[in-house]
């Protein structure tokens, strides 16, 4: 699908999902922090607004997750998320080595983007982990906290709601950290703004 050096990597459905997902995640992070540290004046949202924003964004994110899930299941985009265990440690170390040393020595990326390989190994497994482990856990725990009556009363002498909420908070925090890293790593394209443009236009150069 390439035209010259350009590759069409991000189909419309994926870009729509990515946009919705990004907006929801940002809304959830801001409202989530506002709820966790409620009562402190320096946070953006008051408690009731934070509850409303968190609930709405959570529902939209959950629905959009299914768009991603089924999109990957039924389109060729799913091939970029296939796990290959053999030689994984070497590939990951190679990519880390590039980010830490190689790129500053002017070395070429060990896993350049191509039609067959959209993500480098670090990217790929970070996305797999976030999208297929953390996101489902976040959605399930979030759904449980929205309907707390379905949560088990006690788990090893700890309130089931407490357990679920703490788990939800920890995973949410790691998604926040992932977002920071994701946004930074995205600036490592040909030019700092190149990858941001790609996810809007669909074309990678």
């Amino acid at each position, binding site marked *: 699908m390439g035209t010259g050096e350009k590759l069409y990597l991000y189909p419309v459905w994926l870009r729509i999902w990515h946009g919705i997902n990004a907006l929801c995640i940002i809304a959830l992070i801001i409202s989530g922090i506002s*709820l*966790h*540290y*409620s*009562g*402190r004046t320096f946070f953006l949202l*008051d*408690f*009731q607004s934070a*509850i409303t924003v968190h609930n709405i964004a959570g529902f939209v994110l959950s629905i959009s997750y299914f768009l991603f899930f089924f999109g990957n299941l039924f389109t060729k985009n799913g091939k970029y998320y296939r796990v290959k265990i053999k030689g994984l440690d070497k590939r990951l170390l190679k990519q880390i080595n590039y*980010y830490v040393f190689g*790129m*500053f020595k*002017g070395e070429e990326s060990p896993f350049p983007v191509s039609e067959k390989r959209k993500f480098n190994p670090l990217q790929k497994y970070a996305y797999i982990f976030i999208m297929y482990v953390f996101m489902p856990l976040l959605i399930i725990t979030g759904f449980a906290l929205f309907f*707390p*009556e379905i949560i088990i009363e*006690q788990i*090893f*002498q*700890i*309130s089931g*709601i*407490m357990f*679920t*909420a*703490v788990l939800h*908070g*920890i995973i949410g*925090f790691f998604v*926040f*950290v992932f977002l*920071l*890293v994701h946004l*930074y790593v995205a600036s*490592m394209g040909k030019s700092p703004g190149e990858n941001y443009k790609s996810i809007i236009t669909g074309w990678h150069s």
Partner: protein
Amino acid sequence: MRGFIFVLLLFNIVFFSGTNKLKGQIPEQNQTCLKCHTSQTFTLYNDWTEREEKRLMNPLYILDTLQLAMGVHSSFNCIDCHSMDYETYPHNGELKLEPMMTCIDCHGGDETYASWKFDEIQEEFHKSVHYELYGDQFSCSKCHSQHYYRPVATVSSSLQEIVRADNSMCLSCHDNMARYQLVSDTANLQVVQIHEWLPNQELHFNRVRCIECHTEVQDSLLVSHNIMRKEEATRNCVECHSENSMLQASLYRYQNLQARTDQNGFLAALSAGNSDLSDEYYVIGASRIPYLNLIYAIIFFATLGGIAIHTIFRILKK
């Protein structure tokens, strides 16, 4: 067969010795009263018809002996509070009009009960909407049953039991038309509709007491008795849902709960700064785990630091 008899005897000892023990807590003198007042029916001699008649007991006058035996007044004689004339049977109908003993008659101004602060409670109660609207007609017994009262909040180590016992006092009128109309002519109670603004209403009703929002926290009293008008009740979520949660000074204040949390609380060990908040409940914004917050802070700043250092190197090596 011998084995069966042995088991039967054992069963008898275990269960009936317990019953006797329970029965023993109620004074023997009360058994005459309880003979009728625990029964669905009573028998009296009707002077008009000149025969014995069996009648149905008014359900309001039937006592639950189990609850009675567990109550704080279980060792009292009935006539400690009720008129001595009730010892005559059939009772004189006019006795119903005789003013009942009130709690303060025994508990007020007495050093024995000083720690319960009955006089301060009465002062607070006199400021409440209940007293404001209904005066002396609104007696302590409207909420606290003299027969069955147990200080659940100070003895129970279950938060849920404390909440249930407390809210059942409010709901005994506010969710019971017959009792509510003893003091009000309002035809529709609408407890659920009035609280529709409250997110997760059912959860709030089950997990916190009505008085959390409907009273002001009193430092000197374990339970504030100044029940405010509904317009004055707090609607500010952050009063509970924040680091300095009001619940720490009210619901989570009981030492019995704190002791339980200190001993058994898994997360209490982690939540050193908020040990007043029980593991049993999670309160958004109030249940903080300081060590976890510290770990969050370390990871967050390490990430930002890593990004900053990497950016600097990218700029320098460009």
